[in-house]
């Protein structure tokens, strides 16, 4: 148990960074992430948090500076949203390729043009192939807990993590949050082991030019080529599902809360009809399920907490027993369909008992979507599959 405070998800993320004793923070303001940068700046200036705070001139520089700070041994944090995240795109690949354990709060917002400051998940979904782990949170409690878990996971496997939560819906909504005590966080998350190799003696060339094939070093030992490094990243990010699960279990032992590892279920034990979603929308889907259940429909929610690596076997396991699966997501891969539905369908191809799958794109740029609309849309899919439909949109 910690201390109950009424805070927003942005404050939860800032407090989590402090509890994790981050040593270097670098961030550039963008709505709706801004309060995270402001609150951490105040903590650093007041001396409550002993850290270096770099007030960079862009998001590209924010990520470039935390990558470099991490490379010389510091625990680092940054945060962004929408176009800021897109501006980081080059550095996202660079960070993952550098194998640095950065944790970044991504406050989900629709991307321009035209400008919107309101929520959808297009920004982070568009970064799915950059080699980062992506974790999506349902509420502010999950934000603070996931941030703490994320440092453990990232530092264990040396892969950066985006902790994603919905702009305004979570970032600016105050709810009660159990804020863990510092000593408990310190026990759960030990200080970062310095792997920089900087010892005042040893020369290094970090992230140099590399050839396609393995090449011997000065002692004749064959060292990896470009593709070997890429293969290791892929193996390690695939393998991280295990670490994500075990860190969540250990978190439960320490703090009494589990977030389901990579995928969580709501009334899935006897569900005949599944709703699949991510983030606060998945949370809202539980309300739709309550309504459907009251109408006699055995519905349940599959909440995807980790989108990369994609927890395909867990999703297949949960969906193999249901008759229909309806996807609701706040993103689209233009020219095809929602990314989550696409990935889950590909995963289900291997399954012998496949449900009928329907997919909806909802809530882009803050478009409101209510639980009863989700229930109604699900009911439609119970009667027959709906292929890639946009909800609440006038054609």
């Amino acid at each position, binding site marked *: 148990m910690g201390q109950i405070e009424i805070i927003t998800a942005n404050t939860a993320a800032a407090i989590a960074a402090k509890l994790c004793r981050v040593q270097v923070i670098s961030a550039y303001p963008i709505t709706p992430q801004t309060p995270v940068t402001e609150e951490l700046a105040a903590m650093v200036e007041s001396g409550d948090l002993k850290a270096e705070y770099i007030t960079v001139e862009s998001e590209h*520089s924010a990520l470039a500076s935390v990558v470099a700070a991490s490379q*010389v041994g510091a625990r680092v944090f940054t945060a962004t949203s929408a176009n800021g995240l897109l501006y980081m795109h080059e550095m996202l690949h660079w960070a993952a390729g550098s194998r640095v354990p950065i944790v970044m709060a991504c406050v989900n917002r629709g991307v321009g043009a035209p400008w919107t400051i309101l929520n959808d998940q297009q920004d982070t979904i568009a970064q799915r192939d950059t080699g980062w782990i992506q974790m999506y949170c349902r509420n502010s409690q999950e934000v603070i807990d996931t941030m703490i878990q994320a440092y453990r996971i990232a530092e264990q496997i040396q892969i950066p993590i985006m902790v994603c939560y919905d702009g305004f819906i979570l970032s600016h909504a105050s709810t009660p949050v159990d804020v863990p005590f510092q000593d408990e966080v310190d026990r759960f998350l030990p200080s970062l082991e310095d792997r920089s190799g900087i010892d005042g003696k040893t*020369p290094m060339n970090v992230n140099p030019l590399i050839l396609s094939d393995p090449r011997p070093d000065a002692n004749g030992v064959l060292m990896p080529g470009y593709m070997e490094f890429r293969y290791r990243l892929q193996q390690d990010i695939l393998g991280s599902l295990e670490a994500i699960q075990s860190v969540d279990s250990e978190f439960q032992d320490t703090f009494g809360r589990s977030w389901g590892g990579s995928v969580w279920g709501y009334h899935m034990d006897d569900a005949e009809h599944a709703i699949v979603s991510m983030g606060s929308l998945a949370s809202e889907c539980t309300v739709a399920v309550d309504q459907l259940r009251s109408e006699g429909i055995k519905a349940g929610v599959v909440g995807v907490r980790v989108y990369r690596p994609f927890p395909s076997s867990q999703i297949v396991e949960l969906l193999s027993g249901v008759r229909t699966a309806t996807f609701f997501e706040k993103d689209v891969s233009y020219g095809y369909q929602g990314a989550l539905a696409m990935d889950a369908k590909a995963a289900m191809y291997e399954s012998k008992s496949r449900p009928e799958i329907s997919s909806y794109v909802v809530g882009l740029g803050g478009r409101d979507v209510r639980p009863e609309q989700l229930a109604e849309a699900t009911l439609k899919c119970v009667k027959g599959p709906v292929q890639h439909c946009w909800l609440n949109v006038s054609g």
Partner: protein
Amino acid sequence: MATTSVKQLPKTEMILPGTRSCAGCGLMLTYRHALKALDEGKTIVAVPASCMTVLHGVYPITPVKVVCINNPFAATGAAASGIVAGLKATGKSDYTVVAFAGDGGTYDIGIQALSGALERGVNFIYICYDNEGYMNTGTQRSSASPLGAVTSTTPILSKLQHKKDMIRIVEAHDLPYIATGSPAFPFDLFDKVKYAKDVLGSRYIEVHAPCPPGWGFPNKDLVKMGKLAVESGIHVLFEIREGRFSLTSRSLAMAKKGRKMNVSDYIKGQTRFKKISGAHLAQLQEFTDKKWNESLERHFRDNP
């Protein structure tokens, strides 16, 4: 005490045989003398995608005895900021962080991150090795390319604009130390890097680095070309300590004795200027004279 003899330079070579730089590379000679002025083991270099990446060799072998952290093209100022912050946060003291970027990575794509770092007063040295174009990708035009130069992206008309005045941009950030240098004047360069090492705050040094394949002159003429640049006034050697401007080395001697060379003496040995028009040559001479006279005025005002 100014270095006047090669015997006064440290014997330690931080760059071992086997670099991947071209024969007669101006950057190579610049880097060699800059590193001699810095402490072995206590120097961390931030490098963007550039000729410097090539110089540092191909994984897993490097001929350079420093900690080099490579970073994306636009990110040098930010990466150096992160290194400085990370070292401080983890209690690693006494390191000198030196960013080493080309003119493309400084004047063009890296200017935002550089300006950010300079404005924040990050405690590091930024050395721009200016070879006046995108030489690593094959001689494309940069905003540091001079008027009248043929580049692979100004192949017919040659460059129609003057070189950007990066020093004025850097100076607008109010730095404690700004200097120019040349590999053709290694003692001057060595002294400036050594001085910069002990200044607190953001320090900027711009080195004019002749490039045989990019400019079109024989490899053996690197030093000659560097000297001609200074002696014609194309590149002026000076330093600005806390705002006080002083000519140095050959430029200082020229200020006292008068300038001897014209721009035409400098450009005639370079194929990139083979198509320069009379009008462009006159403009380049006028541009050079204006800058030289400004330097003279400033030098004698600050050093009465």
